[in-house]
């Protein structure tokens, strides 16, 4: 994939921010220099998921308005070499930034970093337009549920209209047991509707709640199945050919036993 990637979904609550945090951290763990840009102005929470909330001084709107330099607003994550966050403003709204300004900002970041990951807000209005303005590739996050898939479909159409052709699908919160019973959309059904390439499937994992609350992305947890899936997606972003996780086997009885002992 290209080096400037927007992570988007249309629908809210499907895991855009969690995925951004995990993929960004994953890329940094692979030795890349990464910046995560939170474009959800007014409803920021990427900083919380990363555990960097207390270090914010300046934000994206300050940079765009010229209150501070770009370097001053970037927060360096001390745990991982090469991981940076550009937080969103919390007291402003989406109209504080225009797509052209975002484009300039992203172009500037691109000079400095190996990867720029943009966390897109829910919706298809100004916030979405800001987030995709400077992006070259996109990861569309969806949960296996009809309303989310419908919104993802809309988003893929809008991305293509804004000239972003390299669009991959990330299916989040899959529960193989429910799929087996026919209570959840299967991966194939989702792919059949959306018709774009899959970059990964993240299983539902209780660890994610814990890690979000602690501010430590699951990708760093060797025992977490979701973490393993995110690590694989990270390598796929970097262009490696990694086979899909066999969730069926891993979430089965023996998989759980094995996992118990590996902790």
């Amino acid at each position, binding site marked *: 994939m290209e080096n400037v990637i927007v992570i988007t979904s249309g629908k809210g609550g499907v895991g855009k921010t969690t995925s951004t945090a995990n993929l960004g951290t994953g890329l940094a763990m692979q030795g890349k220099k990464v910046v995560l840009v939170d474009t959800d102005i007014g409803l920021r929470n990427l900083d919380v998921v990363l555990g960097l909330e207390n270090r914010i001084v300046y934000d994206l709107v300050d940079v765009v308005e010229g209150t501070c330099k770009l370097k001053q607003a970037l927060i360096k994550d001390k745990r991982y070499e090469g991981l940076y966050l550009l937080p969103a403003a919390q007291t402003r709204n989406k109209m504080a930034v225009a797509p052209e300004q975002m484009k300039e900002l992203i172009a500037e970041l691109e000079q400095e970093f190996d990867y720029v990951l943009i966390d897109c807000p829910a919706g298809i209005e100004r916030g979405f337009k800001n987030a995709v303005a400077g992006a070259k590739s996109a990861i569309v996050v969806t949960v296996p549920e*009809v309303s989310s898939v*419908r*919104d993802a*479909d*809309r988003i*893929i*159409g*809008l991305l293509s209209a804004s000239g972003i052709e390299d669009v991959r699908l990330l299916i989040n919160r899959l529960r193989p047991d429910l799929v087996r019973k026919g209570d959840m959309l299967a991966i194939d059904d989702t792919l059949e*509707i959306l*018709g774009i390439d899959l970059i990964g499937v993240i299983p539902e994992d209780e660890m994610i709640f814990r890690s979000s609350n602690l501010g430590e992305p699951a990708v760093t947890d060797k025992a977490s199945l979701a973490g393993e899936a995110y690590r694989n997606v990270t390598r796929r972003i970097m262009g490696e050919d990694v086979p899909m996780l066999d969730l069926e086997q891993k979430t089965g009885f023996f998989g759980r036993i094995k996992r118990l002992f590996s902790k």
Partner: protein
Amino acid sequence: MQGIITFKGKEKGLEIYLDERSTYPVLREELMEKLKKNQDFFRDSDTRVVIRGKKLSEAQRKELRRVFSMDFGIRDVIYGDEADLMREAELKIEKPPVKKPEPDEYREEVELVSGAYFDAQSIFINHTVRSGQRIECEGDIVVLGDVNPGGEVIAGGSIAVFGRLRGLAHAGCSGRKDVCVAAVNMCPKQLRLSGRVVTFPDREETGGPEVAEMRDGKVVIRPVSVK
């Protein structure tokens, strides 16, 4: 859009030239635009308007006449060929006016059919129609891809989907009944043909390509068969 309609002031009134290469819907749209902009031009309702250029069908002529008289108060609208006839009549009064051939029943029918199809442009969509996208066309629509839930395809004529139809398809949206919707995989939630709206049962699998069409006022689905 520049230049498909030309206005020319003549001593008796106004001459409007419609580009022959354009289609009627485009011309009508552009004409309305221009007329609205120059409304005060037509204060004098005695103005005679002569329309030249593009050959228009009887129905189209009627429509333009109505627009002129209702919206701009101009009743004296004549078309190029008629104007020529009139001039000839004015110059040589002794000569009897050229008699138009009386249209017989067969011709009438041909005229009607060609009028309906001639200006209807069809479009070919070379991608999947996704949620939130809406394709509209006065003529027929061919989609090379799927129509996803939340996507809409609205045609004055027929619709063919070379893929799975799961969104909304409306054929014959302006009232034509001789239309159909064909799809390789016909599984919409709802289908509209002319004025009829039919809901579909849930079906994931179909036996192959199918066509929905009107038969005796009812919507009928049948498999596409080679006859």
